[in-house]
């Protein structure tokens, strides 16, 4: 593992029965950089995200995370409490369906404050103030703080999920199609938000939308049938694709 990487994976392999979901995948992620993982459905990109974040165990290969003290941890052999703590503090996970990651019967403020309380925050006033601050940052009206998420639109739910995830200032965020299923204008707003909030945070962003990758990511990895076929600087891979599949992918994108 290179000296400065935040997250590294080598030789990740995983089969679902006869289907090869991941075949010998290597990944490196440096602090503060966003890596987009693109590919069509079934390419293995969501599986890769789940393996990198410790939610799914690979058949072979390993994932290492470097903590703020510089120590390396094997994500899949670290003790369950440690991984859980990591997910609640240093790491964040933004799901495609925000309802998976929100408590629908808890107010917006409670949702944002939960990670703070899980970390030991015990001052109601401070928790509420931080929740208000984050709701404002994700452009949710401050007076919705006590409203239940079931009264929110899809875009608002996604922004609430982002607030809930970023409130503990994670160093590494995993994002699974964060703009999937949203209207185009809503997507634009969300992308703008991600662009401005996820600076100096390392992130792995899974998306099938190349335009999203181009807008947000420093580096891009292209997956096809469980393999990373090409990886590199985003604009270089998209403007000067080397691999046949990457060329196909790029040429298939409609330009508005």
């Amino acid at each position, binding site marked *: 593992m290179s000296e400065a990487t935040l997250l590294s994976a080598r030789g990740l392999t995983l089969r679902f029965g006869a289907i090869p979901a991941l075949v010998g995948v290597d990944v490196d992620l440096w602090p503060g950089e966003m890596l987009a993982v693109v590919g069509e459905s079934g390419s293995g990109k969501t599986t890769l995200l789940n393996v990198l974040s410790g939610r799914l165990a690979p058949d072979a290969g390993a994932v290492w995370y470097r903590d703020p003290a510089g120590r390396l941890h094997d994500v899949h052999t670290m003790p*369950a*409490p440690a991984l*859980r703590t990591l997910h*609640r503090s240093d790491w964040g996970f933004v799901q495609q369906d925000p309802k998976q990651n929100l*408590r629908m019967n*808890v*107010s917006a*403020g*409670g949702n944002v*404050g*939960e*990670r703070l*309380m*899980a*970390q030991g925050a*015990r*001052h*109601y*006033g401070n*928790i*509420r103030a931080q929740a208000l601050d984050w709701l404002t940052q994700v452009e949710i009206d401050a007076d919705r*703080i*006590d409203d239940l998420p079931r009264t929110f639109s899809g875009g608002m739910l996604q922004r609430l999920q982002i607030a809930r995830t970023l409130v503990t200032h994670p160093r590494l965020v995993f994002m699974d199609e964060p703009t999937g299923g949203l209207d185009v204008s809503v997507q634009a707003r969300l992308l703008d938000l991600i662009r401005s909030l996820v600076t100096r945070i390392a992130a792995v962003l899974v998306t099938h939308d190349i335009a999203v990758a181009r807008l947000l990511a420093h580096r891009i990895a292209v997956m096809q049938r469980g393999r990373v076929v090409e990886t590199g600087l985003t604009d270089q891979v998209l403007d000067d694709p080397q691999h046949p599949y990457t060329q196909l992918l790029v040429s298939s994108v409609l330009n508005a």
Partner: protein
Amino acid sequence: MKGYNFAYLDEQTKRMIRRALLKAVAIPGHQVPFGSREMPLPYGWGTGGIQVTASVLGSNDVLKVIDQGADDTTNAVSIRRFFARTAGVRTTTRTAEATVIQTRHRIPEKTLRDDQIIVYQVPQPEPLSRLESSRIETRRMHSLADYGLMHVKLYEDLARYGQISISYDYPVLVNHRYLMSPSPIPAFDNQKMHMMPALQLFGAGREKRIYAIPPWTEVRSLDFDDHPFRTINADRPCGLCGARDAYLDEVVIDDHGGRLFVCSDTDHCAERREAGHRGDEGVREAAE
């Protein structure tokens, strides 16, 4: 009593329950599963408390049984008689005289001693049950001390009502580690659990769980730094004995809306009256 072992349960069962109790005492507030036996009364009537009492009772013990503070309700009377018959132990209504006290939903007003055991009847041992329906998930939360969800509930109360709305079965953190349900005692009683000299045992028969708080253990009711937990005293004294710091029951005394507020702890009230204390309604008999 012929045909029954001492205190109804066979020795092997008592041994199994005592092992569970030892484990529970060793890990304060942690729920220990046990093989709850068929008892001569249905679930929901105190089978857990009865099994714990049966397992710790010895022939020299003096047993008191209370139900919401009273020695004279039907259930308290039945359970007391049950043990009198199957164990032949002396029974009492005096808290000071008892060595084992089985209780449903109250802690006696009198401070307990280090030679006493109090056994609580518990309907739902899982403090997170109303917030998280999956038992697998709550077990994980306990093992990882991941109690953010409970604090979220308290936050929601504050946001919605301006105060924490839990008035009974108020969740506590035991020995800085385990979140515990104190059983449906009023929040008023939570303070008594903290650093109690007596051994506190909890039995849930239907849910098949035992837990315990050893003597002199820290028990803290959950709160926020800027909204600390407070014991709220009634705004009036007991109508019979004039006590100002006891938990009061509201008793309807006639068809015209007449009410009497009396000590829920019948022994405490009787003791005070014997000592000469009188409340404003002191001349009337308490409603049976």
